[in-house]
């Protein structure tokens, strides 16, 4: 190109080779040129109407942040449930008046079972001591002549014992001689687990619906944009733009919308994370002693903007294909 005159008017006679723009020799460069121009042009366009862009991005970001937040809540509930599960004990109250030896025998029998990790025997005296330490009880206890408390066996199931086997254990213990009552703290945990299962499904459905919402928001924004640029599209086609060229800035706009919304959504989610951290930590301390707050994994934080960009591109693609079908 360098040997060619800058412009036809500068040479008295123009050879045909110097006319036009020859791109065949550099298809990759021209491809890159097109994409660079489209990406920059669409970005400039979005920036030229910041309020509209911000609103669209914010709506999309909220739609993306919602399932992320639910996912975060669910993860924390799950973790809390797990932590509590480690402390799960089954209290076996013996009938009053049982002897130490029969309590020992029952404890031994239970220790032999495969699903049991340990058994702690509490005598009525120990029980009385514990009660006495609690405020307000000591006076009342002194009024008693005899210790009314039974022997209590605190059975700790193995951490890997299944819910079924624990149910089985509880049922067995209820049938054992000398046993008055069995209190199983595991039931509520099973309920929690079932609830979390439902919650997980709801989050998935919600994420699907909100992904469609993101698609629709981008689609509609691009549709309005294309409609308002009807004239410009006509001009572009008249000066030789292909449909792919006309369409490309809109596809990039979709990508930008998605990317910005994804980043903003991750920002929202991190804020929720920070807001939750302290109370969850406290709750964990009360219940289980040590409980780490469940944070969103880094890969997910990285994947959300990428996935949102893909959604944006897809929405723009669907709408532009339909709207530019008649452009020629």
């Amino acid at each position, binding site marked *: 190109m360098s040997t060619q005159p*800058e412009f036809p008017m500068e040479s008295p006679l123009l050879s*045909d080779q110097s006319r036009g723009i020859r791109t065949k020799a550099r298809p990759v460069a021209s491809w890159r*040129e097109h994409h660079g121009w489209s990406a920059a042009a669409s970005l400039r366009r979005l920036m030229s109407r910041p309020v509209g862009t911000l609103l669209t991005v914010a709506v999309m970001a909220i739609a993306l942040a919602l399932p992320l937040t639910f996912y975060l809540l669910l993860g924390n509930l799950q973790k809390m449930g797990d932590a509590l599960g480690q402390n799960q004990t089954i209290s076996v109250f013996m009938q009053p008046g049982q002897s130490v030896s029969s309590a020992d025998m029952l404890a031994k029998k239970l220790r032999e079972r495969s699903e049991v990790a340990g058994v702690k025997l509490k005598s009525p005296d120990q029980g009385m001591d514990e009660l006495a330490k609690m405020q307000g009880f000591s006076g009342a206890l002194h009024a008693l002549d005899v210790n009314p408390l039974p022997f209590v066996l605190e059975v700790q199931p193995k951490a890997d014992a299944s819910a079924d086997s624990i149910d089985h254990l509880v049922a067995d213990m209820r049938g054992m001689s000398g046993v008055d009552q069995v209190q199983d703290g595991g039931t509520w945990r099973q309920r929690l687990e079932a609830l979390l299962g439902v919650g997980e499904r709801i989050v998935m459905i919600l994420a699907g619906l909100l992904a469609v919402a993101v698609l629709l928001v981008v689609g509609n924004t691009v549709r309005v944009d294309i409609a308002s640029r009807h004239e410009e599209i006509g001009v*572009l086609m008249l*000066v030789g733009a292909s449909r792919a060229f006309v369409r490309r800035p809109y596809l990039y706009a979709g990508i930008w919308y998605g990317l910005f919304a994804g980043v903003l959504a991750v920002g929202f989610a991190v804020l929720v994370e920070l807001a939750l951290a302290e109370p969850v930590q406290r709750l964990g301390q009360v219940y289980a002693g040590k409980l780490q707050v469940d944070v969103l994994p880094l890969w997910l934080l990285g994947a959300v903007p990428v996935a949102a960009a893909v959604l944006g591109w897809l929405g723009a693609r669907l709408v532009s294909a339909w709207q530019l079908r008649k452009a020629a």
Partner: protein
Amino acid sequence: MIRFDQVSKRYEGGHEALSQLSFEVATGEMAFITGHSGAGKSTLLKLLGLIERPSHGVVTLDGQNLAKIGRAGIPKLRRRLGMVFQDHRLLMDRTVFANVELPLVIGGMAPHERGKRVRAALEKVGLLAYERQLPATLSAGEQQRVGIARAIVAKPTLLIADEPTGNLDPTLAVEIMGLFAEFQNVGTTVVIASHDLPLIKRMKKRVVVLDHGRLVADVAAQEVL
């Protein structure tokens, strides 16, 4: 360069804009297409840019039968042409520079080369100082010159213009026509549709006269009085 062979164009609804039109324009020639409004001038130019297609007959450009160019091939054809419109068809939200640059961007030219070419084109039409302005801040004549700069920036072999002076006062019109003549001088084929007979006579170029879509006169440049 251009060959019309028994070309007819009938629009939907039955109006026949062109009727069995046959003529040729040689490479490097400059020709005016004239006639009253509705004579078929615009339709003729639209057939060259494949904005419309003929109902009958064959239009050939550079030896290529335009009927053979499918929808996907139209952009490539248009990149070989420079088109100037009466309403100049500029993008009003882009600077003068960005408007002129468009055909080069579409052609995939690198930015630094684009800049040189755009400035050369703007210089040619005398608007180099206005490159950063929006078209709306320019006068009608200046806007038309931006349109011309855009049409020539990619160095087309054929320049077609539909009533390029339609909105301009006589002095400006002469100036614009002179610009087109300069392009012919460097080898570009130029076809201009215009109904401004006094101006056409002044230019002393070939004149093709249409009436109701038929060719009624074809006056060679040296015969124009």
